[in-house]
């Protein structure tokens, strides 16, 4: 099955082509839905089989390359279209196709009756196609192809309801914002790739990474490459300072938010950093930057999440915050912990979004949690699964989120220091708090919606079954990564599985301090206690004493205002970047440079060309004798030249 891995890329492409080209004519939603989810489902099965096959191989043979064809071959540049099937890419593709499949199925119910039903599935399939290229590509170019592809799909799907309003503007403005911000990141990524090619004379992963180990390359070069790559990652994975597009990306249909803007695409940056671990490990200064940016993003986004009222916005900030955790892990050298959290996060965050979609669906497109309340009895299945996911993200022991978050916090403590751990733990506390605020305001408390117009109802089975499967995964997904402290001699299975990928990077870092088990268990207990108390407090405030919340918001008006307006980041960008650029482009670039110089030049050249072509056309008289004369004149001229050059 490893050799058939290309099918997992081709099948979604096939689905895209069928739905995209003739979907409009199919008209039958069931057929479109089955084509859309079926192709991804089969891809998932193939990945599972390839995974089992790889598991059976001895550890040293687990990295296989499936070459398809030589893509670009010009001078020294040789780029093959090949897929790398190894522990990391298999893990990623299991997540992409597995969670992707569930979300496809869910969408059949969610998008029911939409006039763009076929278009939606075509885009979704195209996304899976691009994402699979991204995670399976065996060189930076194929990765970049997928990287741009998912960016395009993200753009298309955010603006999917192009005729709807979104906040102050339209969905297409949100889509544009996402695209433009991503371009900034992509620019960094491209520079990184150029520098990699310049330094290592290759773009193939295996070659680059083995040369990164052996070539005598200055740390500064590594630092620049890593920094450029990280700019790319920060754009795609919504980190400071490029996170502003993700909250707006919620303009897309909710399954899109679940698939692209929570579970898969936004984690591409984490994947890329983890794939290039050896490069990052060779640039300690950039590792520190990665860790700090991750940490600051985590706590900042979590704090914004405390006060938001749009159910999807809360989840969006929560996603940014969790992505911050992943970068924190990568930055302190715990690459496998970051991928582990990426996986568990894919389960519970996809579940949260899909649950939110189910709520929105049942509440007639209402997204403001202040207008929910008491939905528990109307949508029991949605409630239960949403609740499980909330427990998981809050880090309650026994669920998946606990294991992965704890591993990150422990690595932050062991490699980064106490402050890293402390901020991480506070973020965990905030997370628990705002998630339970969300649950309380939505499912408990008193019903605040208008009973005459809104009749909450449970979603159909096609939507709730994926929720249950994801809920199951959110509970048990963590048990493959039980920390050494508890699992004893077997060690951390997940870490052991990914270990060969990171071995070169970890050998280079080799600074894991030795800490006692007692320390680890103690820290764990403290963070769990903090999370539990945050949950209790949140439940108490938002189900019993809503007054407290109001009092706090009045008392700390400044902070509340700051958080409510998301630290004014959008406004600052508007004033510091967008506005000057707009003014500058209008006053200087457009009115003077473009209109006067460029247009003048272009029009001048054009009229020159025009008059030139007028003259040239006159030569073509249609008179044969004249042609013969010109021809002879040409020969005579050549002869003259000949004589002169002798």
């Amino acid at each position: 099955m490893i050799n058939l891995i290309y099918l997992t890329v081709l099948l979604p492409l096939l689905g895209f082509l069928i739905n995209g080209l003739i979907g409009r004519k199919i008209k039958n939603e069931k057929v479109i839905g089955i084509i859309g989810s079926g192709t991804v489902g089969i891809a998932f099965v193939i990945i599972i089989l390839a995974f089992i096959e790889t598991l059976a191989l001895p550890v040293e043979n687990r990295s296989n390359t499936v070459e398809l064809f030589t893509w670009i071959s010009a001078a020294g540049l040789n780029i093959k279209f090949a897929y790398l099937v190894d522990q990391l890419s298999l893990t990623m593709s299991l997540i992409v196709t597995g969670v992707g499949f569930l979300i496809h199925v869910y969408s059949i119910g969610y998008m029911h009756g939409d006039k763009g039903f076929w278009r939606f599935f075509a885009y979704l399939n195209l996304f899976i196609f691009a994402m699979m290229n991204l995670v399976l590509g065996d060189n930076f170019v194929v990765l970049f192809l997928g990287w741009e592809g998912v960016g395009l799909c993200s753009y298309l799907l955010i603006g999917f309801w192009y005729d709807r309003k979104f906040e102050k503007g339209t969905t297409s403005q949100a889509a544009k914002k996402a695209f433009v911000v991503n371009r900034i990141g992509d620019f960094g990524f491209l520079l990184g790739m150029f520098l990699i090619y310049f330094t290592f004379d290759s773009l193939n992963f295996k070659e680059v990474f083995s040369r990164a180990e052996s070539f005598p390359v200055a740390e500064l070069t590594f630092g620049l490459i890593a920094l450029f790559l990280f700019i790319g990652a920060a754009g795609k994975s919504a980190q400071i300072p490029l996170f502003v597009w993700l909250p707006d990306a919620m303009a897309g249909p909710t399954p899109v938010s679940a698939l692209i803007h929570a579970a898969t695409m936004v984690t591409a940056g984490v994947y890329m950093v983890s794939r290039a671990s050896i490069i990052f490990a060779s640039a300690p200064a950039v590792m520190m930057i990665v860790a700090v940016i991750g940490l600051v993003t985590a706590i900042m986004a979590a704090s914004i999440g405390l006060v938001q009222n749009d159910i999807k916005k809360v989840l969006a900030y929560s996603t940014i915050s969790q992505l911050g955790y992943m970068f924190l892990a990568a930055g302190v050298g715990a690459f496998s912990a970051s991928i582990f959290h990426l996986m568990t996060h894919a389960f519970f965050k996809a579940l949260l979004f899909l649950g939110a979609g189910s709520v929105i669906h049942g509440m007639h497109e209402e997204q403001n949690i202040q207008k929910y309340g008491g939905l528990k009895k109307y949508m029991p299945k949605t409630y239960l699964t949403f609740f499980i996911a909330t427990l998981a993200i809050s880090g309650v022991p026994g669920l998946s989120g606990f294991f992965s978050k704890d591993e990150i916090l422990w690595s932050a403590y062991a490699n980064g220091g106490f402050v890293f751990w402390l901020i991480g733990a506070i973020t965990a506390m905030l997370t628990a708090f705002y998630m339970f605020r969300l649950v309380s305001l939505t499912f408990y408390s008193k019903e605040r919606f208008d009973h005459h117009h809104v009749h909450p109802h449970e979603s159909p089975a096609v939507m709730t079954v994926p929720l249950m499967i994801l809920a199951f995964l959110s509970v048990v997904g963590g048990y493959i990564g039980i920390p050494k402290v508890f699992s004893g001699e077997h060690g951390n299975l997940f870490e052991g599985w990914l270990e060969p990928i990171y071995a070169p990077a970890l050998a280079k870092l080799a600074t894991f301090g030795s800490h006692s088990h007692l320390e680890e268990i103690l820290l764990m207990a403290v963070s769990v206690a903090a999370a539990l108390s945050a949950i209790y407090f949140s439940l108490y405030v938002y189900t019993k004493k809503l007054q407290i919340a109001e009092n706090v918001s009045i008392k700390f008006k400044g902070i509340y205002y700051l958080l409510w307006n998301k630290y004014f980041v959008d406004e600052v960008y508007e004033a510091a970047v967008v506005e000057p650029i707009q003014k500058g482009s209008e006053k200087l670039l457009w009115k003077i440079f473009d209109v006067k110089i460029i247009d003048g030049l272009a029009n001048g050249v054009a009229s020159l060309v025009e008059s030139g072509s007028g003259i040239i056309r006159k030569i073509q008289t249609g008179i044969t004798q004249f042609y013969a004369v010109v021809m002879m004149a040409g020969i005579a001229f050549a002869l003259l030249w000949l004589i002169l050059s002798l």
Partner: protein
Amino acid sequence: MANTNLYQSLSLIVPEIVLTIALLVLVTADLIFHKDKKSIPFVALAGILLTGYFTLIQIGNYGFAFQTSASAFKHYGMFASDPFSIFFKVIVIVSSLLIVFFSFSSDEIQKITDRIGEYYALIFGMILGMYFMISATDLILIYLSLELLSLSSYVLSGFTKLRDRDSEAALKYLLYGAVSSGLMLFGISLIYGLTGSTNLYIINSLIQSPDVNLFTLAFAVILIFAGIGYKISSAPFHFWTPDVYEGAPITITAFLSVASKAAGFALLIRFVKTTFVSYTDPNGMWQLINVFDWKTLLISISILTMTLGNFSALWQDNLKRMLAYSSIAHAGYILLGLVVFSDQGLKAIFIYFAVYMLMNLGAFLIVMLIANKIGSEEIDDYNGLGFTSPFLGVAFTIFLISLTGLPPTAGFIGKLYLFIALVDAKMIAVAVIALLNSVVSLYYYVRVLKHMYLTSPTKDTPAVSASLPNTILVSALVLATLVFGLYFSPVVDAAESSLFILGL
């Protein structure tokens, strides 16, 4: 000549023999089925497919046919079968195949059903001429094959006799052709007088000696170039092109613009390489015998050709005429591949031709299908056509974009490799001029799009839909244009393996 020699020679010209037989069968069939000529096109089709097959199995069977008896040069013949010739022959035969398909659905050709046998027989005459031209290594054979091609073309370009301009075109073509072939013969006779031989290889070794009259030699070569330059329609020998292309039936125009041009280029390249290159250095650069400043002359000609072509195309309102000028411009680009005098440049020419065949024939096919319906090739009649005929509109757009040389189409790859070759040969200034020329070409290609898409359709705008076979044909060409724009290594590999020119 020994029998073994003859037998070996015949084995090398199997494709040409097949072509000749097919031509005879066509003529005979035309006489036999003079009542119902429906089967004639299929006979032609079969002949082309057979020739294609025999051309392909010729791969690996390389050598000289009809070797000279002069003992010192025994291993050089009149006819070379080598990877280089196979590549161009494949280009010729594939475009012939496409032209036969075009002829199936061309209105112009349907109207002359009673003379369809002659039509195909003449096409076969052209193909035969091209095949010999591609492989000829002897000035006599070169001249004969050139004339065979030209004579068939003269007749075909006025064949339909539907409009006055057809006959005018044919006459102009003939007169002009007569002048240039006269010049060429003059050049050939001068060379024969200088060296006493008509074999290119012998000429090559003779002109390396110091006591050759360089001036006469260079003059002779310029005259020969006039003959070839007229075939590839390079400036200043291009004047016939727009008139003939506009007047000839569209199938023949398309054929002339691709296959005839390919054969002309093959002849030019072989002529230059075997006559004036002393050796190829390990970097693939061709070392020229110091006769004359070829490089500057050819650079001037190619720049002149593309500039004249592009600038004249700007305001053409007839699409056939516009495509005629565009094909002149493309000849200019292709000539640049020769100017670098290196294997890399030759590779670029191969790639460019493969790509040019697809996109140019595709564009002509669309023009033909639309002309079938609306009976016009004027650009104003294309107003709003993109909305009423979405399939053809999109296909035409892709071909035009590709002709401009923009990604993600095959045309981009063709230009890319050409420019890489130029840059590697440190001819940056030339590359920039060629680039600017493509910018100019963007204007007239996109102008068609403007008419198709930026003018709203009126009630009278016809909806042109293609029949199923034509839909398949157009889709195949579109697909190839797009696929080779993204996945081009097969073309590059094929070009890479066809670089070998026999001898030297």
